[in-house]
């Protein structure tokens, strides 16, 4: 009897053990699939030109080189070279890095400020009515191509025309950091509002009541009670929105050229090159674009689980 029980236990243990092994191997397998394209990009970025396209392809660069990185970072308009030929247009990675950083940072900051402010109003005073929380997501669901066409005409024709007649000078939003920032603020606001709502809803309203009973004004209460409690949430939201802007392609492709260029647009210029593709420098740019956002993403990953629950988690 007891041997039977022992045997049953053994079988159960073995089965559990087997199940665990299966789970881990599936997860590791999927992890490898996921990491492979990134691995391929990074290893290509260290390959010299003759290794870009070989059959069979080399999984590890045979003579690793930093040439690609050197190339992308040292190019300027005057210099002729592979990249210049390929893109057939002035290529300036530092300009693109600066444009991307400025546009993404300012728009994320302003969107964060406005969105957090409104999220506070929605959370505390039910601003915009009960359905506003959900309907704000509509903006996020509109396909960007539908916005892109009107925006192009608006930015390039209507705003300059209107500003000339009203203000007396041509104000063009097309191909400017300002115009791109305005647009990014608008399209990321719904996300900011959503994420900040989930953080602000967690701060009990009675904390503010307590502060106000003790004589604190609304602003003082906001600064000393609410803000410290949602600060980490604001950082997460900022980083998330920054990543969104950093990755945005269609709209910046549409609304910038030739003065302003974000990094994804720059990468695409290589892709559309007519005279052979420059896999190496492209991989180097890809790596440069990817590494910072992946690092940021891993940093905020724990909070993303909460932010992406869209209200399905309630404590």
């Amino acid at each position: 009897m007891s041997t039977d029980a022992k045997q049953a236990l053994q079988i159960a243990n073995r089965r559990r053990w087997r199940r665990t092994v299966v789970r881990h191997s599936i997860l590791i397998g999927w992890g490898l699939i996921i990491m492979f394209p990134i691995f391929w990009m990074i290893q290509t970025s260290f390959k010299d030109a003759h290794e870009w396209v070989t059959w069979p392809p080399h999984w590890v660069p045979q003579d690793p080189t930093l040439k690609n990185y050197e190339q992308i970072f040292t190019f300027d308009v005057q210099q002729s070279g592979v990249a210049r030929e390929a893109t057939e247009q002035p290529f300036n990675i530092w300009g693109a890095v600066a444009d991307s950083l400025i546009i993404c940072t300012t728009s994320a900051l302003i969107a964060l400020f406005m969105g957090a402010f409104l999220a506070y109003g929605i959370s505390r005073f039910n601003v915009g009515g009960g359905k506003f929380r959900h309907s704000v997501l509509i903006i996020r669901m509109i396909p960007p191509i539908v916005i892109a066409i009107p925006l192009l005409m608006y930015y390039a024709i209507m705003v300059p025309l209107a500003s000339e007649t009203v203000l007396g000078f041509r104000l063009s939003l097309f191909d400017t950091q300002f115009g791109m920032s305005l647009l990014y603020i608008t399209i990321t606001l719904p996300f900011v509002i959503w994420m900040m709502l989930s953080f602000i809803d967690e701060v009990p309203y009675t904390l503010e009541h307590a502060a106000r009973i003790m004589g604190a004004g609304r602003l003082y209460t906001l600064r000393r009670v609410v803000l410290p409690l949602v600060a980490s949430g604001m950082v997460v939201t900022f980083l998330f929105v920054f990543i969104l802007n950093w990755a945005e392609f269609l709209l910046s492709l549409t609304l910038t050229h030739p003065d302003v260029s974000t990094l994804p647009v720059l990468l695409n210029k290589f892709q559309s090159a007519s005279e052979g593709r420059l896999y190496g420098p492209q991989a180097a740019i890809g790596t440069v674009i990817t590494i910072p956002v992946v690092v940021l993403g891993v940093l905020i990953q724990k909070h993303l689980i909460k932010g992406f629950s869209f209200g399905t988690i309630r404590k």
Partner: protein
Amino acid sequence: MAQIGLKEVVKKFGDFVAVNGVSLDVHDGEFLILVGPSGCGKTTTLNMISGLESPTSGEIIIGNRVVNDIEPGERGLGMVFQDLALFPHMTVFENIAFGLRVKKTLEPDIDRQVRAAAEAMHILPLLGKRPAQCSGGESQRVALARTIVNDPSVFLMDEPLSSLDAKLRVDMRTELKALHERLNATFVYVTHDQAEAMTMADRIVVMNGGLVEQIGGPLDIYDKPASRFVAGFFGTPTMNFLQGEIVAANGALTFQCEHIEHFLAENTPDSLAGKQVILGVRSEHVVVNSGGQQGQVKLIEPLGDVSLVFFESGGQEQLVAKVAPELRFSSGDQLTFGFQAAKCHLFDFDSGTRLN
């Protein structure tokens, strides 16, 4: 100068009427308790006094001024919240100092006053900790200290003891009462726990459905509930209610229902004859083993000092009697019972208002 007056105060949230014309006066230095079931408007009333909600109509007077339009922070109140509302990101010291900092008190004064308040609430060792590191009872004291330090003339408390376990709650009652004696301030306290109200209050305001049902001292309310609702709300076990008719026979009034007939006290007004009423009698006023009614025991709950005997008397209603523990019953026993005539309450069948 800390009397509070409410005049015909109404609060509506959209179509929902939370408080429907409440008038009451809180005397200076009084411990007043607002009690009622959840949703009766007691917390809304408190919030209107504090200024966190503004009344839809009516006047709120603190001291001698109408405070309807005055910010909560300028009304000279202190408030303890149900969830205590301690700031989780500040230490206990900073929590207590918050109100002083708002008033831009000088740093040495802050230190002195915070320490004094902490000492009064016996929480000096906690000053460096955060609220999350404090136990339930400790958090309670921190919340009180944070209120005391601002030296308000009125203390508002919104079910502050509800998060504590039963034993601690009973201890805190005594402590709060002592605090009230010591501070000599006006306390307005909201609770749904009738025992809390009975033990601490100078006066109790019973609210139901946005209206005041009765205002009075604890024993007044217990002995002479103004309505069926109040009668049922106070006292454990709940008062026995029987539905029946008053019949005049042989110059005396009797209460009659399906299986029970009970002679009413002599001072019952004759005008009640023929009326549909509800008779209420508390369990301790049910006399067992005497009186003319027959019943069958269903359940016994021995509490030690007394025993509760639940029995049926033919009809549907289950009655309960509080009996001396020496009287042993077991389920299924027959018993005889009666009501103490002077302790019976009569309520109108329709409106529930008291008739005798």
